[in-house]
C-alpha cells in the first residue's frame, strides 16, 4: 500500500501507473453503471473475464469496468481500446465470439455494432456515433478512463494533481478568486455562483466549518449525479477537498440517497482508499491541511435534496426544511458555516484548478460557463446522459443529439428541470441551455432533467403527473405547499376528468402564484412551475378540456371516445375477444363496433389490433 506523504510521491505514483497501463495490449472497457447492470452487464463482465482466462489472454488484455457512459439504452456497452471500437447490446453468450474474433483477430463483428436510427447505417467507432459526437463532453469523458473502485486508475489519469497544486500554489483566497473567475455556478438547479458561496463561508466567523456534497438526486428520469458519483467518486472527493481548503473546513459529508446502492458503495470505497493512501486525513500531502469525509445515506425523501432539509437530516432529525433567512453559509449544519454543493459542481472544481479559470470560462454563455450534464429522456430516438456546453440550444439537444422524434410524431414540448421545472413549447426550442434564459422562459435548469414530449402527450395530464409526485414528496410542513399543491391537483384532476369550470383556470393561476411566493422552501416555491408554464404556453389545451370537454392529445380517459374505423377493420375478432368489458360487437369478417357506453377506455384493443383500425378522439 503506497502512502502519499508529499506531492512528489504522487507524481512518482502516477508515472508508475501510466507505465503499467501502457504495457497492456488491449483494454476492453465495459460499462458497469446502474443502467448497464440492469441489462446484465455484470454477467457479461464475468463471462468475458472467464473467456479471457480460458484462452490465456489475461496477461495482455485488461477488462476495465467503468461507470456510466451515458448511452444506457444501448447497454451493455463495450469499447475496445486502442481502436475505439464500440459494441452495444452484448449478452453473456457473446463472450466467446467477442474474445476469439474481436480480441484475438481484431475482427469487427457486425451484429454488435450500433445502428444510427436517423441514417440507418452501422457505426464502428464510438467517437463517430452522432449521439456522442454532437456533445461537448468534459466530465463524462473521464468516466470510461477510470475504474470507479480504483484510486490507481484515477491517479493514472492525473487525479489528485489539482489538490496537490492547490496546496502548493494557492492560498484560500486565491482558490476562491479562481473559482469566481471561472464563473462556475451551482449545478443543483438554482445556479448560485459557487465562488460567492465559498467566499461567504470563508468570511463567516467560526473555527468549525463543513462542506457537503448533495447527491440526493430525486427528479424522475434524472441521474447525472448518480452517474458521476458512481463512475468517478474520487473526482468529487478531490473537488470537496479543494472547497474545504478554500473555506477552512476539516470535515465533509457526502449525502447520497439509499436508492443509489452502487453510488453509496463506490463513494465508500473511494473514501476508504483515499484514507489508506493518506490523501484524506491529517496533514494531507505534507501540508497543514487536514480533511476527512463521511458518507451520510438519505432515506429517499425528495425534499431532502433541499439544502436545509438535507442538513437537518444529517443532524439525525426528520428531514424538513427550515426558514433560510440566515443563509446556510453562515448557519448550516449544526449551526456552523456550511458549503453545500451538488455532485456535478464539485466534480468541475479539480478541472478548473488544473486547467485554469480561463479554460473553463471559454465555454458557455455570458452568464453560465462550462458544460452541463442533462438526462435526455422521453419521445426521442436516442436517450441517455448528455453533456453539452452551456448555450447549446434545446433544438440541438433534441434533434442532433436526441435524433429527433420517435415513431414519426411531432415534438411538442420539452420539460426541463424535473418536477419543479416547466414545460417549454417547440417555438422556444432556440433557447440556449443557460440558467437565466430558462428561468426567464418560466422553466429552470434544475438538476438537468430533460423530458421530450410529442403530440401524443396531454399537457394537462403532465401537470397532473408532476403535481401528484410533488404532493407525495412535499414534507407537509407549510400550508401553501401541502394544501396548495393538493388543491391544485384537485383542480387539474377536475379539468382532466371533464368537470372543469372556466373560473377554475383563474383560480389555478392565482393559487399557483401564491404557492410559488409564500411557501417555506425551494420545493414549494418551485412546485407550481409545471402548472404555471403549461398555463402560459398550452392554455389552448386547458381551454379545450374545460370548454369543449375534449382532450386534444387523446390522453385524458374521461374525455376520449374509442371507435372502430370501418374501412380498416377486417373483422378478425381479436379486439372482440380481448375486450374485458364486452363493449365490442360484430360479426366475423365484418367491421366491428364499440359500444361507448360500455367502453372503459382501457386501451387493450388498440394494443391488439393489427390494422390500426381503432381510433381515439
Amino acid at each position, binding site marked *: 500500500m503506497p502512502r502519499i506523504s508529499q506531492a512528489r510521491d504522487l507524481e512518482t505514483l502516477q508515472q508508475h501507473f501510466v507505465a503499467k497501463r501502457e504495457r497492456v495490449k488491449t483494454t476492453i472497457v465495459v460499462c458497469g453503471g446502474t443502467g448497464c447492470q440492469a441489462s446484465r452487464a455484470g454477467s457479461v463482465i464475468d463471462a468475458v473475464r472467464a473467456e479471457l482466462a480460458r484462452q490465456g489472454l489475461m496477461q495482455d488484455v485488461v477488462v476495465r469496468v467503468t461507470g456510466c457512459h451515458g448511452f444506457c439504452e444501448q447497454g451493455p456497452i463495450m469499447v475496445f481500446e486502442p481502436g475505439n471500437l464500440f459494441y452495444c447490446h452484448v449478452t453473456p453468450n457473446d463472450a466467446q465470439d467477442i474474445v476469439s474474433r474481436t480480441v484475438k483477430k481484431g475482427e469487427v463483428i457486425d451484429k454488435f455494432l450500433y445502428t444510427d436510427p436517423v441514417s440507418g447505417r452501422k457505426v464502428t467507432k464510438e467517437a463517430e456515433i452522432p449521439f456522442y459526437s454532437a456533445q461537448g463532453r468534459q466530465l463524462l469523458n473521464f468516466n470510461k478512463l477510470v475504474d470507479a473502485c480504483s484510486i490507481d486508475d484515477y491517479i493514472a489519469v492525473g487525479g489528485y494533481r489539482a489538490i496537490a497544486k492547490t496546496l502548493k500554489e494557492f492560498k484560500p483566497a486565491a482558490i476562491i478568486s479562481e473559482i469566481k473567475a471561472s464563473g462556475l455556478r451551482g449545478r443543483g438547479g438554482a445556479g448560485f455562483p459557487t465562488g460567492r458561496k465559498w467566499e461567504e463561508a470563508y468570511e463567516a466567523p467560526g473555527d468549525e466549518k463543513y462542506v457537503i456534497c448533495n447527491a440526493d438526486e430525486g427528479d424522475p428520469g434524472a441521474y447525472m449525479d448518480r452517474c458521476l458519483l458512481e463512475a468517478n467518486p474520487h473526482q468529487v472527493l478531490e473537488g470537496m477537498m479543494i472547497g474545504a481548503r478554500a473555506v477552512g473546513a476539516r470535515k465533509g459529508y457526502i449525502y447520497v440517497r439509499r436508492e443509489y446502492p452502487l453510488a453509496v458503495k463506490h463513494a465508500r470505497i473511494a473514501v476508504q482508499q483515499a484514507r489508506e493512501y493518506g490523501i484524506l486525513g491529517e496533514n494531507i500531502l505534507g501540508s497543514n491541511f487536514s480533511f476527512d469525509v463521511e458518507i451520510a445515506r438519505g432515506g429517499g*425523501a425528495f*425534499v431532502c435534496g433541499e439544502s436545509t432539509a438535507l442538513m437537518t437530516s444529517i443532524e439525525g432529525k*426528520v428531514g424538513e426544511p*427550515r*426558514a433560510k*433567512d*440566515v443563509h446556510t453559509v453562515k448557519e448550516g449544519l449544526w449551526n456552523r458555516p456550511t458549503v453545500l454543493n451538488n455532485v456535478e459542481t464539485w466534480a468541475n472544481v479539480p478541472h478548473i484548478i488544473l486547467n485554469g479559470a480561463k479554460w473553463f470560462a471559454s465555454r458557455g454563455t455570458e452568464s453560465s460557463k462550462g458544460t452541463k450534464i442533462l438526462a435526455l429522456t422521453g419521445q426521442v430516438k436516442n436517450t441517455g446522459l448528455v453533456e453539452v456546453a452551456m448555450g447549446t440550444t434545446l433544438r440541438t439537444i433534441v434533434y442532433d443529439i436526441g435524433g429527433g422524434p420517435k415513431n414519426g410524431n411531432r415534438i411538442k414540448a420539452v420539460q426541463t428541470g424535473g418536477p419543479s421545472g416547466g414545460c417549454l413549447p417547440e417555438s422556444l426550442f432556440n433557447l440556449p441551455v443557460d440558467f437565466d434564459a430558462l428561468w426567464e422562459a418560466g422553466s429552470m435548469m434544475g438538476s438537468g432533467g430533460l423530458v421530450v414530449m410529442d403530440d401524443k402527450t396531454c399537457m394537462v395530464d403532465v401537470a397532473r403527473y408532476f403535481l401528484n409526485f410533488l*404532493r*407525495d*414528496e*412535499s*414534507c*407537509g*410542513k*407549510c*400550508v*401553501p405547499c*401541502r*394544501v*396548495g399543491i*393538493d*388543491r391544485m391537483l*384537485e383542480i387539474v384532476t377536475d379539468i382532466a376528468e371533464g368537470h372543469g369550470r372556466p*373560473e377554475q383556470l383563474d*383560480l389555478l393561476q*392565482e*393559487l399557483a402564484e*401564491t404557492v410559488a*411566493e*409564500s*411557501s*417555506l422552501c425551494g420545493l414549494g416555491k418551485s412546485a407550481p412551475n409545471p402548472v404555471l408554464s403549461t398555463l402560459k404556453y398550452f392554455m389552448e389545451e386547458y381551454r379545450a378540456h374545460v370548454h369543449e370537454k375534449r382532450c386534444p392529445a387523446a390522453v385524458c380517459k374521461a374525455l376520449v371516445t374509442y371507435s372502430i374505423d370501418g374501412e380498416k377493420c377486417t373483422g378478425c375478432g381479436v379486439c372482440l375477444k380481448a375486450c374485458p368489458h364486452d363493449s365490442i360487437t360484430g360479426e366475423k369478417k365484418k367491421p366491428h363496433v364499440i359500444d361507448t357506453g360500455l367502453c372503459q377506455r382501457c386501451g387493450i384493443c388498440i394494443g391488439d389490433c393489427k390494422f390500426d383500425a381503432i381510433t381515439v378522439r
Partner: protein
Amino acid sequence: MLQYVNVTIDGAPVRAEKGTSVLDTAIHVGVCIPHLCHIPGIHDMGACRLCIVEEVKNGRSKVTASCTLLVEEGMVIRSNTDKILKMRKNIAELLVASAPNSKAIQDIAVRCGVKDVRYPFRNENCVLCGRCVRICKERAKANALGFIGRGKDRHVDHPPGRLMDYCNNCNGCIMFCPMSVTPCGGLMKKGEERLCGQCDSQLNADAQKMPGVCVWCELGKGFQCSRYLAI
C-alpha cells in the same frame, strides 16, 4: 444589557429588541399581521405562512414569514401591500376550506378578507399548525406529541402510536389547539360547511378599512392573537 436595532415596518421607524422576530415586533407596536401557528415564547416553525411579509433588500422585495425572520439593523418590512394581502387571503381561504369547524380559522378568514370559498370544503380535524407539538415539547417538556408521516400523510400523534406515560396530562395541547373552539353557530356536519358570516358582525367597519393596524378586534380572542396572549 439589551441591545436594540432600528427597523422600518410599513414606513414607520421602530426600535426593536435584538433577537426578536419581525412578527413579535410588529404586534408589539400594533401592526396587525394575522397568524395561526405562532405562540409567544415558543419556537416558530413558519408553518401556516399567514404572517408573510415583504422584506425589501437592495431594492428587491422577498416574501418571507415574519415569525421566523429576526430583526436586523436597517431592515425594511412591508406587511400589508396588495400583493401580501392577496396571498394571505388565499392562504386563509385554503385553511378555512380544509377546516371550517374552527372558530379561530373562521375568524382569521374574516380578518384576511375571505368573502367566499372557491374550493370544496374538507372538514378536517387538524391543520398541522404544530402548536400542540411545540407546547408539549417546549412548555410541558414532555415530547409526547410529534409529527408523523410526510406530505399528505403527515399527522400529529404520540410518536410510538399510543399514549405514553411521559404525557403529563397538562392539557396544553388542547388549550392551544385552534380546533378546540367551534364556530358560534355550532359544529358543522359534512356537507353543511360554510364560511361563517356571524363573526363578521364582530369586526367593525374600521377594521376592514385598516387591514394593517391592530384594532383590538374581538376576533383576536378567537384566534388567540398573540397580542392578547402577551398581556
